[in-house]
């Protein structure tokens, strides 16, 4: 059986967030590839889900049918997911340093066939929310109390399929589905507002019939509060527009490097040392 959900304090969650950030830097620098800054923006949300009592999963029974589901639709940010999974006990933290290496189950994008605990194989942007809609529908048919959380990038909102999924979730009043938009403001080639401005997210999501909250997503207390509110609503799908900063936690380094996006690049060993110093526990 699965243990009672444990609620950690905000201070404990903040400390855990720092641990995740250190893992993200260490593993991507060791891999010499990957997306550390895309991972760092989503740390508070992922930390709160796994360790704040929201995501009811059991690392010893990763396929337990009544578990909650988490889908990282912005699959390139998987270092944040792997870090949380390792800390939660899905696999040893030592495995994190095998990220992206031949033979490792920690692939460059999440692969459910190889890593128990991954709920959707992502990496082609735009599909995660639709998969979450299907899971939420299926779980509800079986009268399971499971909740489905989907984390989407703000650049990813350019994929039309996300809007198809938003409409579908509304049609079926999926109260067991929560979408979290990690609005870190950047995508591959520049600022999201310059590439393809999808804002205002909150107004658009509300117009699609969703319950919407907009929060400061790199602060733990509002993240926890928003997840509490979202999971208490059961008559319609809920969205959290999580306004974050890409690379949060190592921003001074990105400023020094004159690149606040720093998309898809690991830190050099030298910069990683500086980053880890910034992220001391």
């Amino acid at each position, binding site marked *: 059986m699965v243990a009672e959900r444990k609620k950690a304090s905000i201070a404990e969650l903040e400390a855990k967030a720092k641990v995740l950030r250190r893992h993200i830097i260490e593993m991507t620098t060791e891999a010499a590839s990957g997306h550390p800054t895309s991972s760092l923006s989503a740390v508070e949300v992922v930390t709160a889900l796994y360790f704040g009592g929201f995501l009811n999963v059991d690392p010893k029974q990763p396929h337990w049918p009544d578990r909650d589901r988490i889908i990282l639709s912005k699959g390139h940010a998987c270092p944040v997911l792997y870090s949380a999974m390792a800390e939660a006990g899905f696999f040893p933290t030592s495995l994190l340093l095998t990220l992206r290496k031949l033979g490792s189950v920690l692939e460059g994008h999440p692969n459910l*066939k190889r890593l128990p605990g991954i709920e959707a194989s992502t990496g082609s942007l735009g599909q995660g929310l639709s998969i979450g809609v299907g899971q939420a529908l299926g779980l509800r048919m079986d009268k399971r109390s499971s909740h489905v959380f989907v984390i989407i990038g703000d650049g990813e909102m350019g994929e039309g399929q996300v809007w198809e999924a938003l409409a579908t979730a509304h049609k079926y009043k999926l109260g067991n589905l929560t979408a979290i938009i990690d609005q870190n403001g950047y995508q591959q080639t520049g600022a999201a507002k310059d590439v393809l401005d999808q804002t205002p997210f909150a107004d658009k999501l509300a117009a699609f019939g969703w319950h919407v909250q907009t929060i400061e997503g790199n602060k733990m207390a509002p993240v926890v509060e928003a997840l509490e509110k979202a999971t208490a609503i059961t008559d319609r799908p809920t969205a959290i527009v999580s306004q974050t900063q890409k690379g949060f936690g190592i921003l001074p380094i990105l400023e020094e490097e004159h690149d606040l996006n720093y998309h898809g690049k690991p830190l050099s060993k030298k910069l990683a040392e500086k980053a880890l110093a910034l992220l001391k526990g």
Partner: protein
Amino acid sequence: MALGELAGLKMGPATRDAFGDALKALGSKYPDVVTVDGDVGNSTRTEVFAKAFPDRAFNVGIAESNMVSVAGGLAAAGKTPVVASFACFLLCNAYDQIRMSIAFPDMNVKLVGSHSGISIGEDGPSQMGIEDVAMACTFPGMVVMVPADGPSTTKATEAMLEHKGPTYLRTGRAKTPIIYPDGCDFQIGKAIQVRDGKDATIIANGLMLPIALDAAAALEKEGIKVRVLDMHTVKPLDEAAIVKAAKETGRIVVAEEHLMAGGLGSAVATVLARTTPVPVEFVNVGDTYAESGDPEGLLQKYGLTTETVAAAVKKVKNR
């Protein structure tokens, strides 16, 4: 002359109708089956199931990409989703969703593409699935089935539900002659020899199977004896039946209502090139889009007829 008449076949239902009826009939036996539709359930015939099991039918609107990924999610939650649309829209519109939400994660989703081939007629080339088999065959692990008549489609529908893993079932809009009035032993990946002969083998599926049987009947009057194989599964392909036919008859004709590129012809030719190189001819839509028109006229104009199949047999015999 009507389709199948030379071969003495009676007209039967369209394969899409056989599929819809079979799905409904199997609904109680397979309680995890759900349907996911892109608002064409009355065309694909999933509506027959939906009317009988309304709580297990989801019409997600005109949004094929989302439809396919939703099915992937339902499968992840333990359901057996049957996702149907026009073959062209299902494969072409949602190709990446089939790749990433179904095939790569090996989800137990049953894809059904109706309105395959040019025999859909008047609606024209934008609605004709003539590249779907090629596209479906590219996905590792995907089973690809093209049944020819009502009874074998009924069997194919159950075989697809029994199979664990992603499948693609191709159905058609036109009524088709009944090849198997007494049913058939339908096994995924196992060809059915419908007729035997020593001079050549026609390997066909879908609507081209009754046409191949007509051609075989016509050729028999000229003293040419042709084996006909129902290659209802394109993937996994029945290599043993192909090799046996090549060895025993020495000549092969492949007939399908599909583009030349990537269809049954390509699959058979690959097996023959590797194992038993013999002369092969192909009867298919070629490398072109078709046009609007009546189904019979279209089959004539684009060369999918008893005459073209018979001519291909004669040509391959003389090579």
